[in-house]
């Protein structure tokens, strides 16, 4: 009887010790830790592509392929986004009907601030992207909002990105559980498989950057938003971040969400935060 009790007590103690040892790890794994996530994210790409300069990841497929890079560098002498950039500059400076301008809606008159978007608005409890802020500025000044996937929005964001070129992405996550949840939701969206093709964003941009998908070379996820908006030869025009998310979803045969849905805003927040410290290179051009 004594032996049986001793065995039982021993097993119980062993189980308690095992629980005590494993439970902190479970808690740690579930805790949202953007700093650790960003570090792990960047290290993954730095180790996978040791020959790519860190600041070069923002150049997407050109950082993965020397031939493409040379062609792109030549194309940059007369970049295809130049018309859009000029149009954006003019639009940005043109007053609304009430006499105010976009500059009145943004810090520093809207110049050199791209690296701070998206940000988490603690008043609203949601992520605010640059595209969303631009349309809110228009509406606040009595103007109709632009389509998130068309040329006007791309031109405006192209100009604003251009004034931030070289500045390092600097996204903040305030000490607010809603901000952490937005980051986590963006991360979840990024890694979740969807569509009939069963692809997640990560299937292409984490597992396969540098590989070909049909005729194209896939860009790494690290720094992918730093080059936005982009001129795409495939589109014969400019594309916003919204347009990129919508088309990515469609290509996997998933019904896309509405531009600037909570999920899209959150995934932009996640992708921008993990690119902190890398330069803004937008507007970009892609095949």
């Amino acid at each position: 009887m004594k032996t049986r009790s001793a065995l039982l007590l021993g097993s119980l103690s062993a189980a308690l010790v095992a629980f005590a040892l494993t439970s902190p790890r479970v808690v740690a794994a579930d805790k949202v830790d953007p700093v650790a996530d960003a570090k792990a994210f960047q290290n993954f790409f730095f180790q996978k592509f040791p020959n790519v300069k860190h600041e070069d990841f923002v150049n997407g497929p050109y950082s993965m392929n020397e031939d493409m890079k040379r062609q792109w560098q030549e194309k940059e002498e007369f970049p295809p986004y130049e018309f859009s950039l000029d149009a954006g500059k003019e639009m940005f400076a043109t007053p609304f009907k009430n006499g105010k301008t976009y500059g009145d809606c943004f810090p520093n008159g809207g110049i050199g601030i791209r690296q701070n978007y998206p940000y988490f608005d603690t008043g609203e409890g949601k992520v605010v992207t640059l595209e969303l802020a631009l349309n809110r500025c228009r509406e606040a000044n009595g103007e109709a909002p632009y389509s998130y996937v068309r040329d006007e929005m791309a031109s405006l964001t192209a100009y604003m990105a251009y004034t931030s070129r070289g500045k390092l992405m600097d996204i903040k996550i305030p000490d607010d559980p809603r901000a952490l949840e937005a980051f986590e939701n963006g991360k979840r969206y990024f890694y979740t498989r969807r569509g009939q093709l069963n692809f997640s964003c990560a299937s292409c941009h984490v597992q396969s950057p540098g590989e070909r998908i049909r005729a194209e070379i896939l860009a790494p996820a690290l720094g992918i938003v730093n080059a936005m908006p982009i001129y795409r030869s495939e589109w014969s025009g400019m594309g916003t971040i919204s347009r990129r998310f919508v088309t990515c979803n469609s290509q996997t045969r998933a019904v896309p969400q509405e531009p600037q849905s909570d999920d899209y805003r959150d995934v932009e927040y996640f992708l921008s935060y993990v690119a902190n410290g890398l330069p803004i290179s937008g507007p970009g051009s892609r095949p």
Partner: protein
Amino acid sequence: MKLSLPLAILLSLSLAPAARAANEADYKAAYAAAEAASKEAAGMRNQWTVTVAALAAAKKAADGGDFDRAMAASREAEALAKASIFQATSEKEAWKAMEIR
């Protein structure tokens, strides 16, 4: 041999209803099932474009009176919608396996 002929007739009679052409009622039941599954997938924010296309094809075929084709498209839509529901359910946890840590 005499026994096998009545048996064959009985068998063909029993199979006959399964081989008959689909009618409007069959199509409506199949379409309703597909639409319900599709709505469930959309509620999970995981609708597939091919499901939407199959539903549209079913409706178009039914409008043209081709209920066989409408039934086939409805069944395809339901199968696709159910696959997307399975995907959304399993991905609630499975996405973590892809995460960079």
